[in-house]
């Protein structure tokens, strides 16, 4: 088992005061809270932080932790000493039904039930549900955009916290194969009836899966609409052309009107994210310049310069 340096996690000195520890926790909690943070590993960092604070804010747990802190280096194999825990009382506000998960390291020292549930006066209370019904579970998954465009099933691995026979909080892995409803948007939820936690006799709770999208290489979603950047050659934009354009439903021929400028938005109605009233696909034109890397190309550019009386800076008032 890995030794965890809770002082390092919280970025405080080993002799930090309670006030300093609290301050450090507040600051880091705001930074890594999964609802607020855009950091990639926010959820893991936040959990680690909560665990570190749980130990360091309690004088008893901190004193006990400090006793073994002189031992192994962080990351080294760790085993609690045989006399561990003597003289300390960890029962605290223990509530094994907390929805928090602790590391193996934490549980070997303080036990699963020692994690004081940090709840506000209205905090989550997994005990509050119909007696004949298991609690609901909530999970979050990241989908590829194709899942909402085309539907189809996706497999997810969910970690499910459970209380084992000895009262320890353990987490089991569960692989779910879920049919993705076509047209689901980021922030929306798939409800799977009866896939939450079971109870001995009654019906199981439901499973709620909140979805988000991975960035797509071609399309940027905005609500139900999709945006696609489409590069065109200068002559296609100037003279008009019919160009092959990808859409979620397949390649189409798109007519570019003569005299199109960079940034021109063209709407393909109903080709966005599907629904009863589907979104639109906006094609945004970008003008790509051909490289002038050989004599022939340079000659073509020079011919264009000679033929066209064009001053792109006329409106800047800095013309020759």
């Amino acid at each position, binding site marked *: 088992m890995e030794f965890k340096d809770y002082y390092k996690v919280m970025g405080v000195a080993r002799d930090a005061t309670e006030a300093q520890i609290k301050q450090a926790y507040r600051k880091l909690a705001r930074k890594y809270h*999964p609802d607020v943070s855009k950091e990639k590993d926010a959820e893991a960092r936040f959990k680690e932080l909560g665990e570190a604070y749980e130990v360091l804010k309690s004088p008893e747990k901190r004193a006990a932790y400090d006793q073994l802190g002189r031992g192994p280096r962080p990351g080294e194999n760790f085993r609690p000493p045989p006399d561990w825990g003597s003289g300390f009382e960890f029962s605290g506000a223990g509530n094994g039904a907390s929805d928090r998960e602790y590391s193996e390291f934490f549980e070997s020292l303080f036990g699963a039930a020692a994690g004081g549930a940090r709840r506000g006066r*209205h905090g989550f209370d997994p005990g509050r549900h119909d007696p004949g019904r298991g609690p609901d579970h909530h999970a979050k998954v990241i989908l590829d955009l194709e899942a909402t465009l085309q539907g189809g099933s996706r497999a997810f691995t969910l970690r499910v916290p459970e209380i084992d026979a000895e009262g320890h909080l353990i987490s089991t892995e569960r692989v779910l194969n879920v049919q993705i409803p076509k047209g689901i948007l980021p*922030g929306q939820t798939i*409800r799977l009836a009866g896939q939450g936690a079971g109870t001995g006799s009654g019906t199981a709770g439901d499973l*709620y899966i909140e979805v988000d999208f991975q960035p797509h290489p071609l399309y940027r979603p905005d609500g139900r609409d999709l945006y696609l950047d489409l590069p065109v050659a200068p002559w296609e934009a100037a003279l008009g052309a019919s160009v092959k354009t990808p859409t979620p439903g397949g390649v189409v021929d798109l007519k570019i009107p003569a005299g199109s400028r960079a940034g021109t938005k063209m709407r393909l109605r109903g080709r966005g994210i599907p629904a009863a009233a589907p979104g639109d696909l906006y094609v945004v034109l970008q003008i790509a310049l051909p490289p002038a890397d050989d004599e022939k190309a340079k000659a073509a550019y020079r011919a264009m310069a000679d033929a066209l009386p064009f001053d792109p800076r006329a409106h800047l008032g800095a013309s020759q």
Partner: protein
Amino acid sequence: MTSIQDVLTGEIFEEYTVLSVDELSRLCAVDRTYIVELVEEGVLSVTAVEAQQWRFAGSALRRARTALRLQRDLEINLPGVALALELMEELEALRRELAGLKAGVFREDRG
């Protein structure tokens, strides 16, 4: 322990769901008074005056759960939660707009 199951079919919760105050509090596993406080603070919006007649869109579940987590984990009070949610939404909208600007979507609008 790993178990594999057949393909599960669910529905988009937000699309068909209308929730009463009691249903929403059960789904959030909190006391009803907490949902009432969220409404009074303007975190959740309703049309009816009487709590018994309140109807919430399915999207209220996610909002209420986020509010609960912020309050519990960051120890902020309700007005603080309401402010944080509003600012987070604004930030999200700005991020989207920025992504569009970076890609040149709004070049045309700027003239």
